[in-house]
């Protein structure tokens, strides 16, 4: 089996290496890829969409239909993970509850059916008996998270002019939640943003994207033509495209952030959404 694979791979390698000899020279400005279609994007994007970042303009305007499905892929992955490993609700109710006394670090273990302690303020619920707790880590993370989120918003809003856009913003925002889950525990994250909110946000993001495309049908234009905003908001064509790009990137950011956080929650807790890393 192993030798057979190696032989097949060697043959493939020879085949690919032979094909590479036929390619245009590496980095050649006059290659077909650099001339045919891409010139249009480079020369037109500022006039069409008033967006100096050519990648953003191409991504969210010229090929926005692709990007729509790319967002749907992320949404679909979150749904798929939920469908595959989310445990049934009754399996997620623990038999044993652990409470840690905050000042002393003493852990109280209660079986199901016992009255819950009334000392809410000084006891905190933890996952298992040994949950490492590091004051330095928690404090540093808490300090970093607002800046991460602010940076995510900057990346989203400034995507027209600098590297960045909806995906990167969504991932950074999601990473701030993942950092919260890793530095504290998953329960802290779930207390901040419920599972339900995440799913609704993910669906809202894709709906925003596809909805903006579909509103063009209502104005009698082709799907994904942002030109309908010229009629709705009374702005000029490039401005409408620029605004359209911003709005769909917002949808992308919402979906990516919510979906990636959901996937991380499900994978790190094996589907119970209780006990994380």
């Amino acid at each position, binding site marked *: 089996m192993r030798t057979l694979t190696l032989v097949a791979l060697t043959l493939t390698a020879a085949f690919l290496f032979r094909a590479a000899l*036929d*390619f245009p020279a590496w980095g050649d400005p006059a290659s077909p890829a650099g001339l045919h279609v891409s010139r249009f994007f480079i020369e037109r994007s500022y006039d069409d969409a008033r967006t100096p970042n050519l990648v953003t303009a191409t991504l969210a305007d010229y090929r926005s*239909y692709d990007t729509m499905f790319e967002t749907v892929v992320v949404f679909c992955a979150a749904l798929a993970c939920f469908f595959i490993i*989310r445990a049934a609700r009754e399996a997620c109710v623990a038999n044993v509850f652990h409470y840690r006394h905050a000042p002393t670090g003493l852990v109280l273990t209660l079986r199901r059916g016992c009255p819950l302690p009334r000392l809410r303020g000084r006891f905190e619920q933890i996952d298992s008996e040994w949950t490492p707790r590091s004051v330095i880590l928690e404090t540093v993370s808490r300090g970093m998270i607002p800046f991460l989120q602010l940076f995510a918003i900057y990346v989203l809003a400034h995507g027209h002019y600098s590297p960045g856009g909806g995906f990167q913003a969504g991932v950074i925002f999601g990473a701030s939640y993942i950092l919260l889950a890793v530095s504290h525990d998953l329960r802290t994250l779930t207390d901040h943003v419920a599972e339900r909110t995440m799913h609704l946000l993910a*669906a809202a993001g894709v709906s925003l994207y596809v909805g903006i495309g579909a509103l063009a*049908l209502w104005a009698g234009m082709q*799907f994904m033509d942002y030109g309908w905003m010229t009629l709705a908001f009374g702005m000029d064509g490039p401005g409408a495209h620029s605004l359209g790009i911003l709005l769909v990137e917002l949808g992308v950011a919402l979906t990516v952030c919510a979906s990636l956080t959901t996937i991380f929650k499900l994978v790190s807790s094996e589907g119970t959404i209780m006990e994380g890393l």
Partner: protein
Amino acid sequence: MHAALVAVIAPLFGAFFCVFSGWAGGKREHWIALTALALSATAALDALLRVLKGGPQTYLLGNWPAPFGIAYTLDPLACALVFLIAAGALLNLWGARREIAHRYPEKDHTFYALYLLAAAGHMGMVVTGDVFNFYVLIEITALSCYALISMGSERSELASLNYLLLGAAGASLYLLGVGFLYIKTGTLNLPDMAAILPAMATAPAVGAALALILLGVAVKMGLFPFHGWLPGAYGEAPAVAAGLVAPMTTKVMAYVLVRFQVSLFPPEFLRAAPALPQIMVWLSVAAILLGAVMALYQKNLRRMLCFIVLAEVGYMAGGLFLGNRDALTGTVLHIYADLAMTLCVFMAAANIERRRGSLAFEKLRGLFGTMPWTMAGLTAGALSMIGVPPFCGFFSKWYLIKGGMAAGHWPFVAALVLSSLVNVLLFFRVFEIAFFEKDERPGLVAGDVSAARLVPLAAVALSLPLLGLATGQIVERVVVPLLAPLT
């Protein structure tokens, strides 16, 4: 031509609404899904009628001119397939509400959302005229299918992971092939690429690109020797999901091969490398024989059907690469016919599974007595798969055999005939068990399944002879315009 677009995005919106409704505590997902699919089927029918009247059209997304933005290429072949997919997905889902609510408590909205996304992905793949967009749609379809398949029997998780690894590798090979084409032509638009390619038909990079694309699609299609994932994935999937993916996925991939063969692969290229079609036809012969032989060994109705699907993939790929007009006609006809008849037998199998709990052969005893309507549906599908006129399976096989004879490829013809005979044997063995052996076990639920499951099955079963009788129309209005540029 907004109709074709509506056909694709209606299920997308349906999926979003299912998630909203599910997390808002509603119980309306089934109706949302049915409405979305019905809307999609209506729109697809509208698109088909327009295309039949006005000829092939392109739909520019975002209103950007064709090679720069993404465009749909709409012709009768594509629109008819979209209509069949939407209608098939609708009928397959129609009566499954109780089953889904029972099997996936708390998760049923996700099931509906994934089902709709898979349907939208299949339809999007058919209409798109952009080679990269096709890759993204493959992945949407595949991801939702992995999730749907993984919730079946105990073995389904491993089958699904195998499917994921092979499927992702196949899609990546396709992507690499597209990269090769892009580096040589500088475009991603299918018609534009087809216009550029003939000038460089003999370049090694183009040959490598087409070989890689062929390899990737063959993996996704389950053509021998890349069929390893297919029986496991379709055989272990939950019944409703199997009724969606088994008829649709392989057929959509076959459609894509037809599209590439007719409009992308330059004839000069195929003449320069005559070995490639020959190899593909021999692989198809191997696939047909393997499917037929393995089906004989199965002790479970659904697994038997999976190996028949494997053989049908061989029919389509073989007809495609024989390369003459009759064989191509047979392939196109077989895409439609096989979609309908596979859907028919899988829906009937789902009904039986719903009543009997399993599809092992010993559970099929006495079915003609207790479930006459379901068995009538299964019989219609079986007769079509065997190739009895006037069912549609007969006509497509007829054209395929004619094409094989015209090309002088006797092994292909022999494999086709042999596999039809094996189908006779397979189905009559099932009928024998279901008709003659009586099941006397107590506690067996008597009677057929509910009308909500029988009416869609009847509709699909009736469509089989209708599709067969419409063969002349299909050839004249779909296939002839498609093959016109080849002569």
